[in-house]
């Protein structure tokens, strides 16, 4: 793994995914932009609050023949709580998000086709999304079930966008009876759509999970 040094504190700054422009220094919380071999400090990220997520940077997953590794995390907060979004790079180069909520996981990959749907176009233009709005994605009907205004609470690892305090986004989760998931996120940089499934941790066939103090990792996951 290529290794750089933090321009702020000089600590080692491992490059987990050279394709991603932003990296958070684990020691001084400096957000570093890597561009054309140059390193530039763009600000300081808030320290991540403690949590008991079993995922960590370096955790691997395997689902439907696709392997991926966690390279970064951003934590979002909203009025009634907060959640983790883990960023993964798949072996085939695809980018994945793994959202954590209620002890369950939403694994999605980018699916831009739904951005053509008028209801989502309307949302992308800055208008509110109606609850119970139903859209079709990859042949599946999904209904908007959860709409949140969220603010960035912190980050770690390598990420595709800057995670400075004050960054906000609007997230709409669509789901259906079969357990499919569609997440549409709107922020200052535009709107992206991510399609995937809800699953429990075992369904991700995870590897290199975090060892949480006071808990024994189930043998099936270790």
């Amino acid at each position, binding site marked *: 793994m290529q290794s750089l040094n933090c321009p702020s504190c000089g600590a080692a700054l491992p490059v987990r995914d050279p394709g991603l422009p932003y990296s958070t220094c684990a020691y001084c919380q400096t957000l570093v932009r890597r561009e054309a071999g140059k390193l530039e400090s763009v600000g300081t990220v808030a320290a991540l609050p403690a949590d008991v997520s079993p995922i960590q940077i370096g955790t691997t997953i395997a689902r439907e023949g696709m392997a991926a590794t966690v390279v970064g995390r951003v934590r979002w907060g909203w009025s009634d709580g907060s959640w983790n979004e883990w960023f993964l790079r798949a072996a085939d180069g695809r980018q994945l998000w793994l959202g954590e909520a209620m002890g369950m996981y939403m694994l999605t990959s980018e699916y831009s086709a739904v951005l053509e749907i008028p209801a989502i176009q309307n949302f992308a233009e800055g208008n509110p999304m109606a609850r119970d709005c139903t859209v079709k994605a990859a042949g599946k009907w999904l209904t908007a079930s959860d709409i949140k205004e969220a603010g960035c609470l912190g980050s770690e690892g390598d990420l595709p966008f800057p995670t400075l305090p004050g960054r906000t986004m609007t997230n709409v989760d669509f789901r259906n009876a079969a*357990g499919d998931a569609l997440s549409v996120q709107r922020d200052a940089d535009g709107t992206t759509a991510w399609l995937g499934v809800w699953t429990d941790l075992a369904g991700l066939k995870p590897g290199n999970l975090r060892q949480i103090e006071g808990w024994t990792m189930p043998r099936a996951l270790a």
Partner: protein
Amino acid sequence: MTGARAVTCPSCGGSIEIRAAGYTVTLGCRYCGSLLDVANEDVRLITAYRRAAKNFAIAPGARGTLFDVEWEVIGALRRRSGSAIWQEFLLFNPYSGYRWLVASDGEWQFGTMLLDRPEDDGLAVSWRGRSFALEDDAEIETTTVIGEFYWRTARGDKVQGATFANGREQLSRETTADEVTWTQLIPITAEWVSEAFKVEQRHMPRPPRPDLTEGFRKAPGMAEDDLGKMFLVALASLGLILMAQVFLSGPRVCSDGRATIEVGAATSTHRIGTLEVRRPWQLVTIAVDSDSFTNRWVDLDYSLVNRRTQQSIDAYGIVEYYTGTDSDGPWSEGEHHAETLIARVPRGTYDVFVDAGSHGWPTDPPPGSIDPANPWGPGETVALWFRSCTGGFSWGMFWLMAALLFSVPGLILWWRHRD
């Protein structure tokens, strides 16, 4: 790296460890019961309470292994729907997520939130190819909150809860203004739970006491549980009515008499007794028994003649008995006994007379026919024995009162079960 996060209760100052840090949104302080908002870094007091509820079957913080996974009880709720009260325990394992343990009526269920949704088709739902029938749909109120939860909750929270069952497996649907959650509930033995956790038996929700009115109280759509009491009150009232009718109609004095009547002849008058009515008003009952004739009837016109005023009170009775054979076989109708009730007889002394006439069915016996056993006697006769008594019991009144008493709870019961 430790996952736990410690906060200080703003109400009582107690230090509380948050076990599911990063997920937990609401915390019920285990020292004072105050509800805290721990969604963000700053801990906010939602509602202050003075005392934490401790009487849960499993204490929050307990750890135990169920289905090969170690769980920590991180939260407990006491909930209520109608007259049913139960406890729900939120189980947590960072690698396996959340589960539920539900203790009600002395039984346990293990709950898993569903990621896929059952398909709703009215009174039943289908889930993973199996059908679950609607069992119950009622409002559920949360009455006690202790420990930590991954959603906003508080005492007094109300949700609409529906239960669908396939055998002993249930699907529970809880609907709030914001969302619908589905949970699969499977039965789990009390022994199994006791092996995993320390269960305080005295804090278990009690199994319902055996109660005859249970079926009425648990019927859907009825919040009130007073139907059983209503039937009891109606029954007690009917007992009082029975005693009033028996004891307030006395004193009972009787007088006997008899008469013999020729069948087919003109009516004849007989004096069959003397009665003294000693209260301002009394009922008078005249009972008659006859010998055992067949296919005859006897018309009885009674008169109570007041000795002082010579005024008469009239009443009517009939004794009839028929037999025959038809396509269904032999039949009989009537009896050799009759009772006549005379209401509102004023104080006084009365002579009791009867005008009696007897006839045959379908026709009178031919006139002048001779009874071979008594060739010199008159024609065929019917013998009648009378007993006239002051006082009496009006069965009509009794049943009318019974109908009026039981119609109210009866109608409620019918209304409940008409579906």
